[in-house]
């Protein structure tokens, strides 16, 4: 068993794959439902390509870096990576958390628009020329245009490299023959879960799917944000103690007692693949050794997200931000819209319009 199937390797690969496929499958499912091959095949294909390109490019890069690291690991006998590992993890986790958060809100909000406006927006974003303007604007425009690329790219880069490094570290004590099967099973298991999410996403009512997947994404992002802080704290702890504390297992000394909120000498998501706890960590941010930083950042994340959505909702309802006066442009907006677009929407009365869009989004499914 041990010679052909290294359980820790399986768990590592499975865990990292799950985290990646959640993102990728939700995005693909979103694209299919919102743009669909039968609505705007051109834009749909392009955006879908972005997702896959981001995934594969991320995978390629982390394989190259990972191979280099493992080569150095065996060749030079030193773990050059160990010093920077947690910083990498922390920075990318924050980045991923922020990107997921923005994307999640954007996807949910976009879905509230009527279909043709969504398509128009997608097309406009896709066609956007980002060669002009100030650097900041260009970056923003680039980010908007290639959002479907960036998110999977960042996710895969982080998870993939993490997987490679963990396996590199663990496999020193394992027979080489035990790694491939375990890694392939982990990948296959993760991919299967991604496929199920994708299929479920495509068949579920659109609104339900969107809400559920957004909740899921935000749970992952909250966990990522908390873990980012945890990684950075762990990095400074490792610096202070002069070694990788995770190598000490889960017991005393593996954590900084001064910052500890809780610590159980088990259930370690980092140690030896982490098993189920590793997956719990990947999806919901579990720590067996929670710090003030990790707990507070987790809660702050949710406070910010809750506040953000309440404000968005307020604006959606009232057309202004709280404590600010509404801009007196409603009429001119209406005029503008009329002059630019002759669709039936504009003929609908305001009272009818209220309470419509959500329902329509939901019933889009019947057509899809």
């Amino acid at each position, binding site marked *: 068993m041990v010679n052909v199937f290294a359980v820790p390797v399986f768990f590592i690969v499975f865990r990292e794959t799950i985290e990646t496929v959640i993102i990728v499958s939700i995005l693909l499912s979103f694209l299919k439902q919102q743009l669909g091959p039968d609505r705007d095949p051109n834009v749909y294909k392009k955006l879908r390509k972005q997702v896959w390109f981001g995934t594969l490019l991320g995978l390629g890069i982390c394989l190259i870096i990972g191979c280099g690291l493992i080569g150095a690991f065996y060749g030079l006998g030193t773990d050059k990576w160990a010093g920077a590992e947690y910083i990498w993890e922390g920075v990318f986790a924050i980045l991923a958390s922020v990107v997921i958060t923005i994307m999640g809100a954007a996807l949910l909000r976009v879905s509230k628009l009527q279909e043709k406006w969504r398509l128009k927006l997608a097309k*406009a974003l896709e066609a956007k020329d980002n060669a002009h303007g100030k650097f900041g604007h260009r970056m923003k425009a680039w980010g908007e245009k290639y959002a479907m690329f960036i998110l999977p790219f960042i996710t895969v880069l982080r998870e993939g490299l993490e997987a490679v490094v963990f396996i590199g570290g663990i496999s020193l004590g394992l027979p080489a023959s035990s790694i491939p099967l375990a890694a392939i099973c982990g990948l296959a298991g993760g991919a299967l879960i991604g496929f199920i999410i994708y299929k479920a996403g495509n068949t579920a009512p659109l609104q339900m799917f969107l809400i559920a997947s957004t909740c899921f994404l935000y749970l992952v992002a909250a966990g990522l944000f908390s873990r980012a802080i945890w990684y950075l704290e762990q990095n400074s702890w490792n610096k202070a103690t002069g070694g990788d504390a995770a190598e000490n297992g889960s017991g005393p000394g593996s954590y900084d007692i001064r910052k500890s909120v809780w610590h159980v000498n088990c259930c370690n998501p980092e140690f030896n693949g982490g098993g189920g706890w590793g997956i719990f960590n990947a999806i919901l941010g579990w720590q067996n050794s929670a710090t003030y930083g990790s707990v507070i950042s987790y809660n702050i994340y949710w406070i910010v997200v809750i506040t953000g959505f309440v404000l968005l909702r307020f604006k959606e309802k009232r057309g202004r931000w709280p404590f600010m006066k509404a801009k007196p442009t409603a009429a001119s907006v209406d005029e503008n819209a009329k002059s630019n677009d002759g669709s039936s929407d504009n003929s609908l009365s305001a009272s009818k319009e209220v309470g419509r869009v959500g329902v329509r989004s939901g019933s889009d499914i019947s057509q899809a």
Partner: protein
Amino acid sequence: MALTLLRQLALATTLLTTAVIADVREYNFTVGWVDRNPDGFHERRVMGINGQWPIPTIFATVGDQVVVNLKNELGDRPCSLHFHGLYMNGTTHMDGVAQSTQCPIPANSSFTYSFNVTQPGTYWYHSHVDGQYPDGLRGPLIVHDPENPYADQYDEELVVTLSDWYHDEMPGLISSFLSVTNPTGAEPVPDSALMNDTQNLKIPVQPNKTYFIRVVNMAAFAAQYFWIEDHSFRIIELDGIYHKPTEASMIYVTAAQRYGILLTTKNDTDKNFPIVGSMDQDLFDAVPDGLNPNVTSYLMYNSAAPFPNATILEDAFEPLDDATLEPTDELALYEDPAISYTIDVKMDNLGDGANYAFFNDVTFVRPKVPTLYTVLTSGDLATDATIYGVNTHPLVLSHNQVVEIVLNNHDPGKHPFHLHGHAFQVLTRGDDDSGDWDVEAFRNGSVKYPTTPMRRDTLLVRPNGHFVIRFRSDNPGVWLFHCHIEWHVDSGLILTFIEAPLQLQQQLGGENGIPEDHFDACRAQDMPFQGNAAGNTVDLLDTTGFNVSPALLPDGFTPRGIVALTFSIVAGLLGVGVIVWYGLGEISTIEQQKEQQKINTFAKETGVVEVTGVDAAPAGHAVAGREKDVGYTAANEVK
């Protein structure tokens, strides 16, 4: 340096050849800082005596009275002197252990040690305050023996000291060792190894002569493998106890151990031979780059001949097992013990995050009142261990009983254990990873105790191994039993034997007991010297104010953790709820229009406006097709 040594050698030789009668050996020692660079890498201040470092060797002859008038001129540190290995029978107050047998000697004050030497052999003396001696205050103490049974077998005598050496001073090293940032308890690794407090010393020898070499390891931490290239030798002494001559070519000398060996030199003088000490790197958590664990001196047969580099052994060390030796006096195995203590050694972290060392879950913390003074001021309660405080780990012994210690090492490290006031018999010692001692092994005959067991005062226990030792409680006093790795002294691997306290009160309780300068030392530092461990004199059983170790590490979820986890779960659920709420809510017309305007503007910029015409038809169719549903829902909502 070499001069000092030679002078010492000359003195030793003179003493040996002079007919000696009982005498008073008076030493006036002024302890102060001097700058030295013994390994040639780094000059630092060290604790010297009378401006000298290496500090002088104390010489005496069996039967002598030794008087050391000590003046502490360190300025910033207290100090003390412990005469390692001397039984101090009747003078336990001269054992020199701060907070056990005396108050530390404060800076700018004087203190007199006075005791009779009744035992021959190789000893050493060192400060016993806060693991302080590695800063330099340690030197050999040699007791010559007019009745040495091996006197006719050697011509001359040499003292070879081994030591590890640190470039930094102990207080800083101790605080970084006993720190939350050193949770594994990794001991500071020495910077160098020294022999006779230097390196590459040339020791002149004559061909075809026999030398009695007294090897003393004065290290803070590192044991050393010791050998002389192309020479073997006969061991005749372990820690002051004569043993039957045993041939060996390599010995393993732990911190605080001494070996007396007879070395017969070669017949020819063509070559010089390295004397090699090699620090046991198994002890080190991580061996730093560039550490040279070896130190070399030379048997100089011929000053004109070359001094070859020592052949460095990597790990093919094969030292003699000292437990196999037999004492010359053939003292028989003590009878079955009146009391046997089983002591488990472990390392663990406490609530302050630092790593501590434990005997049976107790880590040593110094009492406020030196334990000896508690004995002397507690009357009949002196036999009640409570008054000494849990963290001095007091074990009260009756007079003249056989005491057995079964020590089980639950730590993967090697530890040299030292008992003050006694040499003990070594009944058995387990190999690496032999686990706990099981007395069944003796009962069923698979382990036999020697009939005349080896005796010494410092014994190595192997990683995850054990040993069994016995001694007779014939020496009233307060005697520590501790690991002689100074780091572990600091992290609490100490227990206190309170041996025959009532007899001790008779010995030292009167007017002629403890000299006044001992109490002056306490007074100068406002340290209590009466009452129980906390200085409570009214109710000695009142344990308030006792020094105790830090609390245990919190286990798992404390209320803080439960609250934090609950809050996090609630925050997550609330967040999910808000997302659902937001996702279900619809955009008002005003916002919808604003959004459309934005998209239009945006679409114009990017030049896709024209395309909308194509999409408009299916989109419009969809809307029209669902008009009915929408109206229905909207109507419902209005209600």
